């Protein structure tokens, strides 16, 4: 019988610790960015993380029964050949389970549960996570930092083919147009996903000999969200293929000018110096896709036709801002919640099981998560800072191990 094979409880220790490092690493970077005052991020993260931690273990067990371990490993096989789809982006692949783990951190850091509560959920989530990652990156590692912040998902022949279809950005006017399109497509991806990174993601750098390449996907119109009607006729995604001057980057790394050109687990590029990307950028190509895998097709947009798309995105951004400004605060907590629940969509779409999963309760809310939200609401901001800095993820208490007692730190339960 097909099933999700569960890891022993002790093994969750390994994953929890690893998890806390790269989460801390990532969130320290995210902290350098701004906050959108229109969106109650801490509150909707608290609700959605708890929702998925409590609600989604059934989904992972069910997927195990439907497609087996090999099927779970094959979740991202479409992302090895195609882009502009959610099975390629690390945010979507990782955070479906990753935010469920955050749910545990929020609950523990909020003093609402102890580290040995819901340990079966913990085993199920980590077991699914580990198995998905065995089939995601080329090197089958669980985190980009394990590979020196290079996230290589696409097969090399696909990468090399894309490398032949880029256009030079020597013309300053064209370069500026691509720059505007790049910023707008990313902004729209963010907005469509309530200001979180499920709406966009880079993979790469891929090595093309004399160039490095990134593929940047921006999911500007997720059709499963009700506000797709606000977004209008934008395609499901835009993608940019970007190439960089490798020799220049090597020289700059050698001289110490370039300290970092790193893709994080959210598919986010962080550079030091911060504006380095544009300095090394030499070529680009743009694509759009009308629907997520397993549906849809990808179409190339010649760079001289970008203005039409820029206009369309500008209109959608304006409508989306108006929508968010008019929306009541608590409604936004609920809607933000669904964007993170949707982080598990690629797991079901990969096997064409979206409709069946929805009929089984994919979009339902475990009411315990709402109960915990009400108990923890007042300290959502404080708990978010701690939990997302990787300060949670405590190990479950295990026989033979010295553990902290209930009077220490987050082992205390307040309710």
């Amino acid at each position, binding site marked *: 019988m097909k099933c999700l094979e569960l890891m022993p409880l002790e093994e969750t*220790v390994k994953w929890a610790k690893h998890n806390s490092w790269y989460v*801390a690493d990532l969130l*320290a970077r995210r902290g350098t960015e701004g906050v959108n005052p229109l969106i109650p991020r801490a509150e909707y993260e608290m609700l959605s993380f708890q929702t998925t931690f409590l609600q989604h273990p059934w989904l992972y067990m069910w997927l195990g029964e439907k497609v087996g371990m090999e099927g779970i490993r094959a979740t991202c096989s479409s992302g090895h050949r195609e882009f502009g789809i959610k099975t390629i982006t690390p945010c979507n692949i990782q955070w479906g389970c990753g935010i469920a783990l955050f749910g545990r951190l929020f609950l523990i850091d909020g003093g609402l549960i102890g580290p040995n509560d819901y340990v079966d959920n913990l085993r199920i989530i980590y077991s699914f996570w580990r198995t998905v990652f065995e089939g995601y990156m080329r090197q089958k590692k669980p985190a980009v930092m394990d*590979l020196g912040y290079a996230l290589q998902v696409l097969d090399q022949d696909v990468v090399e083919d894309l490398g032949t279809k880029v256009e030079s950005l020597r013309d300053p006017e064209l370069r500026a147009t691509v720059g505007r399109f790049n910023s707008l497509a990313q902004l729209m991806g963010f907005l469509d996903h309530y200001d979180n990174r499920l709406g966009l993601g880079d993979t790469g750098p891929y090595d093309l000999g004399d160039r490095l390449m990134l593929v940047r996907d921006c999911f500007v119109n997720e059709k499963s969200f009700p506000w797709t009607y606000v977004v209008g006729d934008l395609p499901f995604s835009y993608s940019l293929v970007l190439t960089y001057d490798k020799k220049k980057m090597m020289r700059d790394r*050698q001289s110490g000018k370039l300290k*970092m050109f790193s893709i994080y687990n959210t598919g986010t590029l962080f550079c030091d110096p911060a504006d380095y990307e544009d300095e090394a950028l030499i070529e680009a190509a743009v694509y759009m896709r009308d629907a997520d895998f397993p549906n849809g097709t990808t179409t190339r947009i010649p760079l001289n036709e970008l203005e039409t798309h820029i206009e369309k995105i500008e209109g959608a951004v304006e409508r989306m801002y108006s929508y968010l400004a008019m929306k009541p605060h608590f409604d936004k907590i609920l809607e933000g919640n669904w964007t993170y629940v949707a982080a598990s969509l690629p797991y079901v779409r990969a096997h064409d099981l979206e409709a069946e999963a929805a009929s089984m309760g994919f979009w339902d809310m475990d009411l315990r998560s709402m109960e915990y939200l009400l108990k923890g609401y007042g300290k959502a901001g404080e708990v978010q800072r701690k939990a997302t800095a990787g300060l949670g993820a405590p190990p479950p208490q295990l026989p*033979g191990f010295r553990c902290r007692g209930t009077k*220490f730190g*987050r082992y205390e339960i307040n309710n």
Partner: protein
Amino acid sequence: MADIKVKKDAEKRFAWSHEEWTLSKNFQTADEFETWLSNESKYFIRCNSGFYAQCVIVCIESKGDEFLAYVDAYKGKFPPWYTAEELAVLDIDELRKEPAKIKWDEDWEWTTLRKTDFPLRLKEVVFLYPPQEPAIPWLFLSPEESGLDKMKI
């Protein structure tokens, strides 16, 4: 590395660990142990936000008791909440040369060994993670480590 025996896969306490050692070494103080662990650890994970991390499980004998405990050690600051001024002067390439410090904070659940456990006898060390394997070494590692410093481009 004196007296350290690397366990074979079949002998491991945890099948999922990266590497396990057996040894018999006495430590009088926490400082002595901290220095030893920093020198012997091979698998620090480099995180670009400003720290190198290592977490091991140790089996120790102390005060007539034998138990497993976590030991979490860092070069740099964890959590990496640096101020802008601290970040401006932080050189992650150079940080690797610093000694690692164990995070002994009272409420830190990833270091359950305590300073009051010393003197103790260390019997096992379990390394949880494999080392990083950079896909593009010259881009990730310091030019000195990757050999880029000697490369003609």
